């Protein structure tokens, strides 16, 4: 047990056990799956037609929108003069079904039907169509355990979209809320603020929607604000999720671990040996993509390497991450307008 905990020696055993347990898990979930299948096959023509109509409308809507985004992205890239901005950050994605079994009633974990034969690795981003769902944890050959962002052991590096303020979102233990426990009482945050991933932590690229702030309590005597948010992803009702592989050379890619240090973006343009005084356009672009100013400052100073918050798994970075660069002290001076 200690071996598993400390040295991860039993990874192979875990893998084998997960492989062995998957048939049982499938068997247990099969009655529910069968019921869904029966329901689906007896769906009326009307409801199917309605759904079809709805989906078609949505598709048209999205196509229109994506056309606009294409144009914007092109314009943006042209303006910045950075061709690397054109390839999307997501390289490959794979839908995965959630296997309907109970893994642990008090922890927020689910099992999906994709594993290492689908080249899923531990610590991979799991999204649904509205936001971030979680990341893979134990990966077996045909199945993988996903730790949800609402699990109390999961910490997600995020930033507030409106202000760019970075912090950590920790699961609150139920499937409908997240806590932001490391925000100072004078932080500029309001109900309704959108929380997005900040790109730190090495799992999610920046800018993916996570949650909307629903509750902010600031008390003068408390050094930290009490903030709650509701995730965008339909964590409690999803039956299908998306596994995403990210293009490592995209400027917006999540941080990558390299010799124990985390590196972001295109390696060919990244490590700046000589500190440049005026920030070159490519650097500025990369910094803009990373969407944070402190990084830009660091890059201009020639230090692109950011200390790793912990090992590769961002799932266990709850506390260590709160102090290093994630919550930038440089941001603190932002005081709310009194």
């Amino acid at each position, binding site marked *: 047990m200690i071996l598993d905990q400390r040295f991860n020696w039993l990874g192979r055993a875990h893998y084998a056990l997960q492989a062995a347990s998957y048939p049982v898990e499938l068997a*247990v979930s099969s009655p529910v799956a069968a019921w869904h299948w029966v329901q689906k096959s007896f769906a009326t023509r009307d409801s199917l037609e309605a759904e079809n109509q709805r989906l078609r409308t949505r598709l048209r809507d999205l196509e229109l929108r994506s056309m606009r985004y294409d144009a914007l992205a092109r314009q943006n890239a042209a303006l910045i003069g950075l061709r690397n901005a054109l390839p999307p950050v997501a390289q490959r994605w794979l839908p995965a079904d959630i296997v309907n079994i109970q893994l*642990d*009633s008090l922890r927020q974990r689910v099992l999906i039907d994709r594993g290492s034969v689908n080249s899923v690795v531990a610590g991979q981003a799991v999204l649904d169509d509205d936001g971030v769902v979680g990341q893979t944890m134990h990966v077996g050959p045909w199945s993988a355990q996903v730790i949800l962002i609402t699990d109390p052991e999961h910490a997600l590096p995020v930033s507030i979209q409106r202000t760019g303020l970075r912090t950590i979102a920790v699961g609150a233990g139920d499937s409908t809320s997240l806590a932001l426990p490391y925000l100072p009482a004078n932080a500029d945050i309001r109900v309704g603020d959108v929380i997005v991933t900040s790109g730190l932590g090495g799992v999610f690229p920046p800018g993916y929607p996570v949650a909307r702030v629903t509750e902010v309590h600031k008390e003068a005597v408390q050094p930290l604000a009490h903030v709650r948010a509701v995730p965008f992803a339909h964590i409690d009702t999803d039956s299908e999720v998306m596994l995403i592989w990210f293009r490592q050379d995209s400027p917006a890619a999540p941080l990558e671990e390299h010799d124990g240090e985390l590196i972001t973006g295109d390696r060919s343009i990244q490590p700046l040996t000589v500190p440049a005084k005026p920030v070159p356009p490519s650097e500025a672009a990369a910094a803009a993509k990373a969407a944070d100013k402190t990084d830009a400052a660091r890059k201009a100073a020639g230090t692109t390497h950011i200390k790793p918050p912990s090992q590769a798994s961002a799932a266990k970075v709850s506390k260590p991450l709160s102090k290093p660069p994630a919550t930038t002290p440089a941001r603190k001076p932002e005081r709310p307008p009194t």
Partner: protein
Amino acid sequence: MSGSSPRVAMLKTVVGALILTLLPLPSWLEIVRPGFLALTVLYWSIAAPRAGGITLGWVCGLLLDAFEGPVLGEHALALAFLAYIAVREHQRIRSKPIFQQSLIVFAALIFYEVVLFAIDGWSGHPLTAPLRWVPTFTGALIWPVAAAILARSYRPST
């Protein structure tokens, strides 16, 4: 019923308990779901201490670890402890009326949960929700029923 060895019955009930453990339930039922596998191990340790004993507990725990639990071996250790206590005291427990047995089972389940709690804490996966203690109550409440059902699965040929 199934020969002289209770092993077959043991296997069947363990698989049944595992399925009951993994079955998706509405959330309020999930909270009160007793540890079926722990009850099964307890029953077999008391009823047939020689056939299964600590090994049964350990194997069942490992099975449980394959599905849940943050650390591999957590449930294996806890269930082996549970089986050990039950095997040691099986004469005394067996002679008690069923309701007193329930009380003993309650104590044993609390011990089991404390072991899990301690391992969770040591391994840095703390889960301090008070709800985690609810299954010990429901486990003790369901014990008479569970024991009766498990008793039907195997009758020693006297």
